[in-house]
């Protein structure tokens, strides 16, 4: 008894006060999680309640219209499909190639440390800046003022490249070096080791990184707002040099429409966008957890 009372004196406050304080703060920490989850739920419900009345099959197959009940998302849906396909086409070889180079081929020279540092910095550059770069480099310089889907996809490629590179690097690093050593011992050269040992092993990790990067490209709108600048699009892009809009940009223009009924249309489009993105994220998480059981080091 005596011991305990000395100890509490030293610590300044009685045992019960300390326990009470503990409980209050636990409640605070739980609240932080609850508010986060509640915010997510509120957002989902807000969008569903506003959007569901407008959501039917025609909404997917109609073009944008001045009448809210006739408006659909066929144009931006086509644009988004173009953007994500072209972005995948550009990003996957460049991103995976960069990761392979940095992890398997590069010596730890200054240049390569510079490249790694640079990629980390690029991941933090605001997306509007990529929009300005795309406008100057692709729209004005490369395509002579044509605001086409390829310019949009190239801009998105630069934006999501760091995500693919960093995820691929991690996936490559997770391949045990004993696998490589075994292949080298059988006389394989570096590229053969990478091609037939490292890449197959790292594939699931890379895939989940690529899917996350592409879902970022689908959801991102600031650079496309700068590149496309189209308000109404009543066509699906037919070639890589077509004009275009994308789903998030269409949502943005509908939110800003004078007719408040268009907010419901915007919410309906948000529901479609979220379904696409959440299922992509789900697939990425599923791939990661399915293959995460790493072989013993």
């Amino acid at each position, binding site marked *: 008894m005596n011991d305990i009372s000395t100890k509490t004196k030293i610590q300044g406050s009685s045992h019960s006060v300390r326990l009470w304080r503990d409980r209050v703060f636990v409640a605070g920490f739980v609240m932080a999680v609850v508010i986060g989850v509640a915010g997510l739920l509120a957002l989902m419900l807000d969008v569903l309640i506003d959007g569901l009345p407008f959501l039917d099959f025609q909404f997917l197959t109609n073009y944008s219209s001045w009448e809210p009940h006739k408006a659909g998302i066929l144009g931006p849906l086509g644009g988004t499909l173009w953007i994500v396909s072209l972005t995948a086409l550009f990003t996957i070889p460049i991103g995976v190639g960069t990761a392979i180079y940095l992890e398997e081929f590069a010596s730890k020279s200054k240049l390569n440390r510079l490249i790694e540092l640079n990629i980390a*910095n690029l991941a933090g550059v605001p997306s509007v800046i990529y929009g300005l770069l795309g406008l100057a480099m692709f729209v004005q310089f490369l395509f002579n003022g044509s605001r086409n889907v390829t310019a949009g996809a190239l801009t998105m490629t630069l934006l999501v490249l760091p995500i693919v590179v960093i995820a691929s690097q991690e996936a490559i690093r997770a391949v045990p070096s004993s696998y490589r050593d075994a292949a080298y011992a059988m006389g394989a050269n570096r590229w053969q080791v990478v091609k037939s040992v490292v890449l197959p092993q790292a594939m699931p990790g890379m895939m989940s990184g690529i899917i996350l990067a592409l879902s970022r490209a689908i959801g991102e709108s600031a650079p496309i707002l700068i590149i496309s600048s189209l308000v109404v699009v009543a066509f699906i892009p037919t070639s890589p040099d077509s004009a275009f809009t994308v789903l998030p940009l269409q949502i943005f223009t509908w*939110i800003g429409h004078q007719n408040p009924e268009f907010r419901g249309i915007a919410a309906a489009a948000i529901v479609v966008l979220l379904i696409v993105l959440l299922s992509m994220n789900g697939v990425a998480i599923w791939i990661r957890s399915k293959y995460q059981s790493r072989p013993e080091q």
Partner: protein
Amino acid sequence: MSTTLNETSQEQLERVARRRRRQHNEQKIVTVLLMAAALISILTTVGVVILLVSQSVGFFEEVSIWNFLTGTEWAPHISPEQSGVLELVSGTLLVAAIAGIVSLTLGLGAAIFLSEYAPERLRRILKPILEVLAGIPTVVYGYFALTFVTPIFQGIFGPEQVSVFNALSAGIVMGLMIMPMVSTLSEDAMVAVPRSLRDAAYALGATRFEVATKVVMPAALSGIVASFILGLSRAIGETMIVKIAAGATPNLTLNPLESIQAMTAYIVQISGGEAAQGSFEYKTIFAVGLLLFIMTLGMNIVGRWVISRFRQRYE
């Protein structure tokens, strides 16, 4: 007999040598291609810097850097004299400060709960749910701020007090968006604190809260600080939420209920086609972009430096 055997082994040797040479050449080509891919990232950075600097030169010929950074009136469409960026910077910082308070409180609280209190099974459920927040497009957050959060504040403070577009709604919603980033980075730092430190504190009779705040948090401080800096940098660079929900009124104010204009929102407003290419107004977006780039780059460098400099390595 022996001569034929020698001939075939000679042929075999040559075939092997040819294959080796082919493989060697293939590897050489691949190495060059991979290196070219890696260089694209360097070219991107160089491109960004050259673009922003070269395009801002025209702007800074008409407006001195000092006037740009200290002027308190932003109306470049009226005259180049009114090109004081402080009105935009203050808008950006006001929203970022609100987002920072929200994301640090929620993110740190969630990180402490997940790493110190939650049982493993609950953690495995909660973490992915919170991370969904980070995957939602910013245009959706903008919609949420404008149609859900702002009406709530208008109900509380009265519609005449709260502008339809205001910094508070944008900041709070942005804080929600950044929360998973703060919580994941902080939690990673806290999980890395070794069990033995916690056990030592428990053995001295500390409560969980005391262990969390007096042992774990100080040991994980660098990760927590870095998560906060990186989160703020994210808030400064965010575009769509402020464009949709915070307004288009350059405004030097501390009142979060007023309409403001953030730097990013100004850039998309002008570059989205309002100003003719080559006009003075068009040049302003690159000057604002350059300042934005420097601010976010600086914070990212500091954030990563804090992580690497103060990371304590426990055995």
